[in-house]
């Protein structure tokens, strides 16, 4: 389902700035943000942390059948990226040559439109990545 406006709005700081969480107790980084560190639970101390803007592809897929509001973009690449602080995220990979999208490829952050709510509705923005050649 497309996100309701309040949900889209709540996530703006996190998605626009790639803000995740770091646990000051164990040092682990998380994206998206969490309220409790799964490693340390109540002993943990999660603080908001800017995630690094570079990382590497762990796995990828080229998507041919998509939710209707992504239909016009197919085929598109999705990847799981491990950022340089070892936090991981799922993202689209764009602006990259097909043959360069593979496991281990270095990627960097882009700020992009994700989808439009409706022709005259809200536009969801967020993070995508591209391969750094």
């Amino acid at each position, binding site marked *: 389902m497309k996100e309701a406006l309040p949900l889209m709005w709540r996530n703006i700081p996190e998605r626009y700035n790639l803000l995740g969480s770091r646990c000051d107790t164990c040092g682990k980084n998380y994206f998206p943000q969490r309220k409790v560190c799964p490693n340390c639970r109540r002993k943990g101390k999660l603080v908001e942390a800017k995630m690094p803007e570079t990382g590497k592809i762990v796995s990828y897929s080229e998507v*041919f059948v998509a939710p209707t509001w992504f239909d016009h973009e197919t085929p598109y690449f999705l990847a799981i990226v491990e950022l340089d602080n070892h936090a991981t995220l799922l993202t689209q990979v764009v602006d990259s040559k097909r043959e360069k999208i593979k496991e281990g490829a270095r990627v960097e952050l882009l700020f992009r439109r994700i989808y439009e709510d409706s022709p005259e509705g809200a536009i969801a923005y967020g993070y995508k990545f591209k391969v750094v050649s």
Partner: protein
Amino acid sequence: MRNVSVIGVGQTTFGEHWSLSLRDLVTEAGVKAIENANVEGKDVQALFGGCMASGRFIGQEHIGALMADQMGMNPVAAYRTEAACASGGVALRLGYMAVASGMYDMVAVGGMEKMTDISTEDAAVALAGAGDQESELFNGATFPAIYALMARRHMHDFGTTEEQMALCAVKNHGHAVHNPFAQFRKAITVEQVMDSGYIASPLKLLDCSPLTDGAAAMVLCASDKAKDYTDKPVDIIASAQASDTLALHERRTLTGLHATEVAAKEAYTQAKITPKDIDLLECHDCFSIAQLMALEDLGFCKKGTGGRFVEEGNTDLGGVIPTNLSGGLKAVGHPVGASGVREAIDVVRQLQGTAPNQVQLKNPAIGLSHNVGGSGATVVVHAFKKGF
């Protein structure tokens, strides 16, 4: 804790039932299970029904009461469970716990889904609710894409091939030819799978389980009473469940389901068995890669060797661990809330000797059912033993 046995099973045929509603399906399965158990409706003290997304598929919630109402069983206590595609397995486990604890002597458990009243596109979005909406679907990840990310990494780390994955689908279709309840009773070839077109690379259309309408149900009772109702009770010798992160990217590995490993280990401890003692497996092959990973994570072969294990015939009829003799989710169909119970029923049928002749094993003693919710955030494992 008391021992618990299965005394009756029932299901609808799985497929596109345009003339039947969710209430028709669950009622048919429930009544068949009660008939099969040789009990009266009034003997059943509680209902547990798994259903993933009736609100999204047909606009109906409050499924517990709907089951009791439609089966004419009011005022019995009735519960709906939801754990995405593991909703049925969780219903079975809660029913098991209710009888094992002594709270009830006899309960019915079931699972159901009515998926074809809405468009394929809308159904795919409903199913994406099994993953993390805010980090997966938001970025355009459908469910096939999530499993494709696992498959790609499995190929990278272990040299697994698309042909090996295709073989899982081929074998399952071969079994389903004999299953009167299956959606696709049609054999397919590796070439057909390879030519079926990418949904999310490396997964192709025929690597994926379909959209299906269907329901399945079982009657459980305390083992010491089971022989009062049936000559062929099947004992539940283990029931285990584990959770993991909702989003795939936060897992410790992409190439296996940790929750499967945890649930399997606990189940083997409960039943005092090892994988070598198990005569058959019904595993959760929502995508072909899921079957390879299940064989590894359940301990039937080493991590990374699932492709070769299948290629060598170990999961065939007559192999080390005959797998998805029903046809699996791929060919029996996957009404998401029902599959966990359907998997268990097909293990029970093998142990009772009532599976289709062409796929019936000779006197199996122990079988395992494995049910996954989402991309592995919930896993339920049950072990069954012939009780007669």
